[in-house]
């Protein structure tokens, strides 16, 4: 897949928690770019600052210094409301534990971003059902998430993330709650069906079994970016 325009540009990102002697530097001077049409992995051991970095580039955690630009929008110059609106329209999230509402049907879970965008309830459910079809859960729209397997729940979370057609998709440890085969199948599915020239996907993981699906891999250690390399996709 050809690499196109810059989707995310992070420059001089720093984040620390606490003050004085208790200060912990979670992310130090991180710089990178992610492009439309690619899957970028952020990898590293626990405590390396992956999640903190992911939160900063997705407009969730304000950095102490540095800038994040998504499609030329300086994310951290936006007001809180504008930032929430920006996330709603531009970024799709797949959380590690899925965070699906057990009291809603899968279709209603998927429709949430559209409902937050103030779309009509029935219209939102219709679009959600269409996206559930994309992820292969056409006949499970009326089931609550608890009736689905882990892999199916992950796919519901993916459908929720893409239902508003965001340009950026953020997946946090997408295979952490899944067995090896299911995890690989999910990421392969994302690679084959969700990635497009107009979308950039960032995946935080420390699961080396899925590295093969990355275009590029950003490696982090102790809050620092220690390298960026091409994925092993070409070798497949």
């Amino acid at each position, binding site marked *: 897949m050809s690499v196109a325009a810059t989707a995310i540009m992070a420059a001089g990102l720093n984040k620390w928690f606490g003050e004085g002697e208790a200060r912990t530097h979670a992310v130090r001077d991180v710089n990178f770019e992610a492009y439309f049409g690619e899957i970028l992995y952020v990898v590293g051991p626990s405590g390396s600052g992956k*999640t*903190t970095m*992911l*939160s900063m580039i*997705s407009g*969730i*955690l304000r950095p102490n210094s540095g800038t994040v630009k998504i499609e030329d929008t300086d994310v951290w110059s936006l007001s*809180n*409301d504008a930032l*929430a*609106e*920006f*996330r*709603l*329209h531009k*970024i799709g*999230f797949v*959380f*590690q*534990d899925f*965070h699906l*509402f057990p*009291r*809603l049907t899968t279709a*209603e879970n998927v429709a*949430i*971003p559209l*409902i*937050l965008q*103030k*779309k*009509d*309830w029935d219209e*939102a459910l219709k679009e959600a059902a269409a996206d559930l079809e994309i992820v292969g859960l056409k006949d499970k729209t009326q089931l609550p998430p608890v009736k689905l397997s882990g892999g199916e729940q992950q796919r519901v979370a993916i459908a*929720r993330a893409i239902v508003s057609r965001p340009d950026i998709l953020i997946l*946090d440890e997408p295979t952490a709650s899944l067995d090896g085969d299911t995890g690989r199948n999910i990421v392969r599915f994302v690679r084959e069906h969700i990635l497009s020239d107009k979308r950039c996907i960032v995946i935080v993981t420390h699961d080396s079994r899925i590295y093969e699906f990355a275009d590029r891999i950003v490696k982090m250690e102790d809050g620092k970016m220690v390298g960026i390399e091409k994925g092993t996709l070409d070798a497949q």
Partner: protein
Amino acid sequence: MRGILHIAYKLLVNDRAKYAALLVGITFAVFLMIEMTSLFAGILMRSSATVINIGASIWVMDPAIQTVANSIPLPDYVLDEVRSVPGVKYAVPLYSGAALLKLRDGTYQAANVIGLDDTSLFGRPALLTGKITDIFAENAFIAVKDSEFYKLGSPKVGVEFQLNDHRGVIVGIAHVASSGLFGVPTLYTTYNRALQYIPNPRFTISYLLVEPKSPADVASIKAQVAKAGYLALTKDEFTSKIAKFYMYQTGIGTNMMIMTVISFIIGLSISGQTFYTFVIENLEKFGALKAIGAKGRELIYMILFQASFVALTGYGLGVGLCTLIIWLARLYLPDYAAIITGWNLGVAFLMVVVIAASSSYFGVRKVLKIEPFDIFRG
């Protein structure tokens, strides 16, 4: 906004166990609050039954009077003095006292006897059976068909009884607005017959009933009566004075208030705790919504909607349950005093609003504090 409230509604009602616990808590609290306050309202209304039923604009009495049931007789000259006060259209005496009846079956029954002014019959009740002029017939009494009527043996016109060894005859059956508080039947007769049949102290007038020429005259009448050493109260002032007596000087009001407050605390603790747990259980999901792009105020609306919805539903169920219980109680206990007034409903509603507001306050605080970053961090 409708969409997000729809989500809030589904999150609430689909969690059936918590929704049921919330509804039970609020319904029970509302039921207790309305039951307690309506019982009190019923007691207060009945305590002023004579004032309500007679309907005089101004009541003149001894200043030491606390309730209408315990009159302190006035000397006759007070009637003349009041009649001479400028602004008084007319003033008539009223007798109110207790008597012991011997019914036809030989049983004894206490009764409240109201003696109406012979000339005007001012304060006479509406008759269901008989003619009011029959009250002037020999030994004539009118029985009031209220919740105590059966204690007279549910008499018909013509039934005889003895009152302090005098013969009495029922010449009419009347209907009044309110039954009395003390569980005794009421008989109406003329003022003079009441004095004749019931042993009395030196002074015999229980109250003077006064009609002013115009509402503007009320203040000057009260002032003139006060100068004479007596107390003149409007109908509303008198009922209020009686209510205050029962509220603050008998312990009834305090006990009812304590029960109402306890009901409120029970409702607040059950509902508050359950709602808080409900919010805590969904906290991560609210955090996820925030990460996706929900604004803080939208989450506040969700929680307020959930709290208000459950509070109003519980309120409706509580009012319904209370109405049902009072209705059932009245079927079997004619003396049951509870009445649901707008005031009862208002107090319970206010308390439900406080329960909903307090429950949602802690939930809102938690939800506003949750950071989407916490969701990522796990």
